[in-house]
């Protein structure tokens, strides 16, 4: 399997390490910030456990489990709680990106 630009995707034992590029980005963001001392990894783990346990208890039978959705939600919660940004700033930027024309230059 190859990505569009011809680069082989990261593999681990024959499986994709990340199922979509954004999952690799958020994993990288979490690791970099933790390694730089913005938060201990355990704080992130707790935030992740909260998200996952909420899903475990509240999901409907055939809801698909999307691990990195929980990862992303836990990370944004933790970072705004640590005041690295204000959550409204993230929502604003999210909205900006959402409405920009398709095929914009990255």
């Amino acid at each position, binding site marked *: 399997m190859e990505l569009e630009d011809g680069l082989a995707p*990261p*593999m*681990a*034992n024959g*499986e994709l*390490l*990340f*199922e*979509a*590029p*954004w*999952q*690799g*980005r*958020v*994993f*990288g*963001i979490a*690791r*970099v*910030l933790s390694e*730089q001392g*913005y938060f201990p*990894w*355990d704080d992130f*783990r707790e935030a*992740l*456990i909260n998200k*996952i*346990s909420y*899903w*475990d208890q509240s999901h409907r039978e055939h809801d698909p*489990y999307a*691990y*990195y*959705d929980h990862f*992303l939600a836990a*990370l*944004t919660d933790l*970072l705004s709680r640590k005041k*690295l*940004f204000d959550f409204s*700033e*993230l929502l604003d*930027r*999210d909205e*900006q*990106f*959402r*409405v*920009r*024309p*398709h*095929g*914009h230059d990255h």
Partner: protein
Amino acid sequence: MTDHDREPQAIRAEALESLLIEKGLLTADAIDEVIVRYSERVGPMNGARVVARAWIDPDFKQRLLEDGTSAINEFSFEGGRIEKLVVVENTEKVHNAVVCTLCSCYPWAVLGLPPRWYKDPQYRSRIVREPRTVLKEMGLDLPADLEIRIWDSSAEVRYMVLPQQPEHSLGKSEQELAQLVTRNSMVGVESL
């Protein structure tokens, strides 16, 4: 057409990265470096080297089972410090398997990032309740008289299974042995 069509999580992730870069908290290069590290240098090949050495070197094996954290420091693996690595040995009488029931804790330094099934609620909840059935579904049919022990990972302790050495591999070199060791055997859902 707008980016409305993209996955919302992909947009949120991009917004997050852009905001953090703008605030000077990280760089795109630093994120790239982490992804490359976990794609190329931190993975189950590290654990396989540990297992192969334990198979050929009884003293190392003893050190590994007594204090996994110190023993793996004899290698220089990247991948984050493990607070405590406990290595559990499969024998004629006991089979071990590892889970993280609450999230996705996993010994990155020796196994890299966990596979998808390891993070799935199915595996997390069922391997504890009905280990024999789950292992059988994953292709590992264990004799009824073999005791199964399940180890639940936590923030403090990460587990790795030391699989039994297959008989046909006796006499091989450490390097050859390392190539026989699979990730799944070190999580305990496969025998070699």
